[in-house]
């Protein structure tokens, strides 16, 4: 196992070194991708080893950063899940990236991306492996910084620079909160995670609450919970596509990992309001995420908002788990946490697939705007089919993996209605309603995303000229699509294993009760059973039978190809098709109270008469209201303060010298006043 750990580091390090050393050509692309794949495979093997054996892996490296305490690495089953999902998304993305990076052939950006990608993957893989606060914070910051550089790859575009600024600001705010949280946690006594776990029992409840709150803000901003999600829809579209896949698939999950680690493992659960708050935040994030996703017509922004939505769903599971844990309902808590973890894995896989598909579209046409795409299913059949698999998975359609985890999430909220406290029951009912609405709206959004982008007639010449993605890009996507199906059919094996990892965290000894094997998922209390493999088999069988029957008994006349029916019009142009904005319009009107769209109509009249109109222009914009009412005032206030402080920067050398002397005098004075021992 130690060998695997070293291979993990070696793989990524060699990939990074190769990227720097081998220039900006095909060799560098492939070498860095290969290094990443080796590292990812080692990570996957390490995680699998820990999961199967059930025993943790530890390694102490006091030599590194010795004066500050040294680094410590531990991988327990919970961390192994996150390491596994990181590696699962990393390998196909790296393979995809080898082909995608041809975009920067001959430019320094190629070396930069190759290097930073490997550093990013290395630090991200080390986050679940961190065994002490110093290690954790170091690799966490490394992950944030390397992803920042990756986001800034195309830094000649102003919106990319702005995205990078938002991203950097949010990660640093998150880091500050995490620092505060860990400092408070260590007030019971320093040491690695195991020492902190023991010491946390002695902390006063006020400190525990503060630790939890700061951790929630810090990890929540990384995960993308509302209202700390504002960096997501900016940073993810700006980054290169395989990086977006990794950020959306793996990096935001590290926020969930951190939250689970601090609240459930280190603090050992807490009062009911922790779980209730997390559940409420999750439900709101899910619903608002999908509502804003519906209104996007940029393919990657749409996917980014869907990440917010799915993080909301995962957080609902985590919150429900925390809540049930505090209410002494361990079986229900286990189920909720299992649902959350499983959805984390599933989301990593299908969101990675979707981002890679969007990247293929961007690579082929140069555009992300759905209103200018269309008809890509003819030029890019593979990408279209794989994107369809991803869309069906994220919409929660059987028999793919998204459906299984949504089913689990539904079932986990049901016991809550029977909780002793009526407030919990009401919260559960509301969460159920919001979960169902989110699922329905998600399906609607992906009909739009897939239908407008890939189907019908191309809406621009670039879309008409689209070519299929290269084989390495396709291979990466195929691996993820197969994983979607495998995760669904293999649910009967994965879910009991996840419950055995979660059970010790909730306080139930050993493997959780009432999970049976053999093609069925049985929830505690015999509440419900479902078999994704049987559903998949049944569907396939029925569709095949129907097809054969129709072939045998229906008319043998050949299919005739004709014009789309047009109600008497002469010719069909792309302008006559439905657009993405038009598709989402009914929902926009229904939820207008949430969106508050601004509408601007200007009419150009003919100079001779007011009864003839030359042109009408319609402009409508939606500004998310947290940006308008929460962030904009804060930013403007910071700006006005900065301008006031700017007065200090007078440019005069005398002024600066005076500042130095003043600081020295004040410091000496303070020492005198407080007394020297």
């Amino acid at each position, binding site marked *: 196992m130690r060998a695997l750990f070293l291979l993990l580091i070696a793989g990524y390090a060699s990939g990074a070194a190769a990227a720097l050393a081998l220039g900006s050509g095909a060799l560098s692309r492939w070498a860095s991708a290969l290094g990443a794949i080796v590292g990812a495979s080692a990570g996957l093997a390490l995680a699998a080893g820990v999961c199967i054996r059930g025993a943790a892996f530890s390694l102490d490296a006091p030599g590194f950063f010795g004066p500050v305490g040294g680094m410590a690495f531990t991988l327990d089953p919970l961390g192994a899940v996150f390491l596994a999902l990181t590696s699962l998304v990393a390998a196909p993305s790296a393979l995809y990236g080898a082909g995608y990076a041809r975009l920067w052939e001959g430019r320094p950006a190629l070396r930069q991306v190759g290097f930073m990608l490997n550093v990013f993957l290395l630090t991200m893989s080390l986050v679940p492996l961190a065994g002490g606060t110093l290690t954790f914070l170091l690799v966490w910051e490394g992950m944030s910084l390397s992803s920042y550089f990756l986001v800034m790859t195309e830094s000649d575009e102003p919106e990319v620079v702005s995205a990078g600024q938002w991203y950097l600001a949010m990660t640093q705010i998150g880091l500050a909160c995490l620092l505060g949280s860990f400092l408070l946690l260590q007030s019971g006594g320093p040491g690695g995670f195991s020492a902190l776990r023991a010491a946390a029992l002695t902390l006063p409840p006020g400190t525990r609450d503060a630790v939890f709150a700061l951790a929630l803000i810090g990890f929540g901003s990384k995960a993308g919970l509302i209202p700390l999600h504002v960096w997501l829809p900016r940073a993810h579209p700006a980054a290169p596509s395989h990086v977006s896949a990794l950020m959306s698939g793996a990096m935001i999950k590290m926020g969930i990992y951190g939250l689970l680690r601090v609240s459930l493992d280190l603090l050992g659960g807490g009062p009911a309001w922790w779980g209730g708050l997390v559940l409420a935040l999750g439900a709101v994030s899910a619903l608002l995420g999908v509502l804003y996703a519906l209104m996007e017509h940029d393919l990657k922004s749409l996917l980014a908002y869907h990440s917010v939505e799915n993080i909301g769903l995962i957080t609902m599971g985590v919150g429900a788990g925390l809540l049930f844990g505090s209410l002494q309902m361990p079986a229900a808590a286990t189920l909720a946490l299992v649902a959350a973890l499983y959805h984390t894995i599933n989301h990593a896989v299908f969101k990675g697939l979707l981002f890679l598909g969007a990247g293929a579209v961007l690579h082929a046409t140069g555009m992300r705007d759905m209103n200018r795409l269309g008809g890509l299913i003819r030029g890019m059949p593979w990408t279209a089919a794989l994107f369809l698999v991803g869309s069906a998975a994220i919409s*929660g359609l059987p028999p793919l993996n998204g459906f299984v985890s949504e089913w689990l999430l*539904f079932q986990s909220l049901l016991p809550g209605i029977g909780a002793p406290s009526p407030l919990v*029951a009401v919260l559960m*009912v509301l969460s159920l*309603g919001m979960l169902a*609405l989110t699922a329905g709206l998600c*399906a609607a959004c992906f009909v739009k995303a897939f239908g407008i982008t890939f189907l019908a007639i191309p809406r621009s010449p670039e879309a008409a000229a689209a070519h299929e993605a290269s084989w390495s890009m396709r291979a990466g996507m195929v691996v993820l699509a197969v994983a979607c199906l495998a995760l669904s059919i293999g649910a009967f094996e994965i879910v009991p294993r996840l419950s055995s990892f979660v059970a010790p965290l909730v306080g139930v000894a050993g493997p959780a009760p009432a999970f049976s094997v053999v093609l069925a998922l049985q929830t505690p209390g015999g509440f419900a059973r479902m078999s994704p493999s049987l559903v998949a088999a049944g*569907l396939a069988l*029925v569709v095949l039978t129907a097809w054969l029957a129709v072939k045998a008994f229906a008319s043998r006349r050949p299919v005739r190809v004709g014009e789309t029916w047009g109600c008497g019009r002469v010719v069909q142009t792309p302008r006559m098709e*439905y657009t993405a904005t038009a598709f989402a319009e009914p929902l926009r009107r229904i939820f207008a109270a949430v969106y508050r769209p601004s509408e601007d109509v200007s009419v150009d009249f003919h100079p001779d008469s007011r009864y003839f109109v030359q042109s009408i222009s319609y402009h409508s914009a939606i500004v998310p209201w947290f940006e308008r009412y929460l962030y904009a005032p804060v930013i403007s206030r910071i700006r006005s303060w900065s301008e006031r402080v700017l007065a200090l920067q007078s440019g005069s050398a005398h002024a600066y010298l005076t500042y130095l002397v003043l600081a020295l005098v004040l410091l000496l004075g303070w020492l005198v006043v407080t007394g020297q021992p």
Partner: protein
Amino acid sequence: MSPWLLGPVQAALALLLAPGLVGAIRWMKARLQNRSGAPPWQPYLELRKLFAKEVVVSNNASWLFRAAPFIVFGSTVAVTLLVPLLAVPLPFEGAGDLLVVVYLLLLGTFFLALAGLDPGSPFGGMGASREMTVAALAEPTMALAIFALAWSAGSTNLGHIAARMLATPTEGLAPGHVLAFAAIFVVTLAETGRLPVDNPATHLELTMIHEAMVLEYSGRYLALIEWAAALKLLVFFTLLGNLFAPWGIAAALTPGALLWAVLTLALKLLALGGVVALVETHIAKLRLFRVPELLSASFILALLAVTASFLLR
């Protein structure tokens, strides 16, 4: 009879009865509106005609257009294998519960909407957009109604719910159940494209939802889609009839019990069909932007069903 044979028998029975159900509703509507109307077996003749006709496909359509009817039909037939049509316990009890049923129907809707967008016609786009809007807004009601039922029965498994209702008949009149029935009835009207949400009668009224999506289909593809729509209606009626009033369902797989089950099922379908015919004759179609009001009202009914269920625990 072996329990595993029950599944295909159920599916075959559903396939056989579905067009007759649609025909019966049309006939009842006609009689209520003082017309003679077509005979109740007209949809069978229509299906036979459509299977024999030539298929015309748009030149803009892709493989998805030709595959979608099979996926829609297949998913709806798969649902008939999971609902308590004839007997309890169900053969595929461990395969799926009420949530699986709802999501399988969503699978069909998803692909039908995509098939509406494929030919590039604005009517298809409009139908697809409206269909997904209505489907999304009906989801919360369905989820809460399911949980009102599951809460009192102790499981979301369909056979279990039906068996529980058979065991304690007085629970059938509990306020929670009545409200859940009303909520699911409104969802049925919305999901199967009946008035006041959508008009299934005329094919050229372009403000429609379901008919606008399938405008481009012809021949055997159209036959499959129409049959699937009839099956969906039958499935919803079966859920309404056999979950809330399961008396007549066979508990043992003997020929006598099964025959009785078929008879009572037919009676329940006709009764619900009569109610739908009355509603359709009495009410005019709602504008699209009044449909969310109707669905909100059904959501409130489902919410009250859940609260009533746990007020009486």
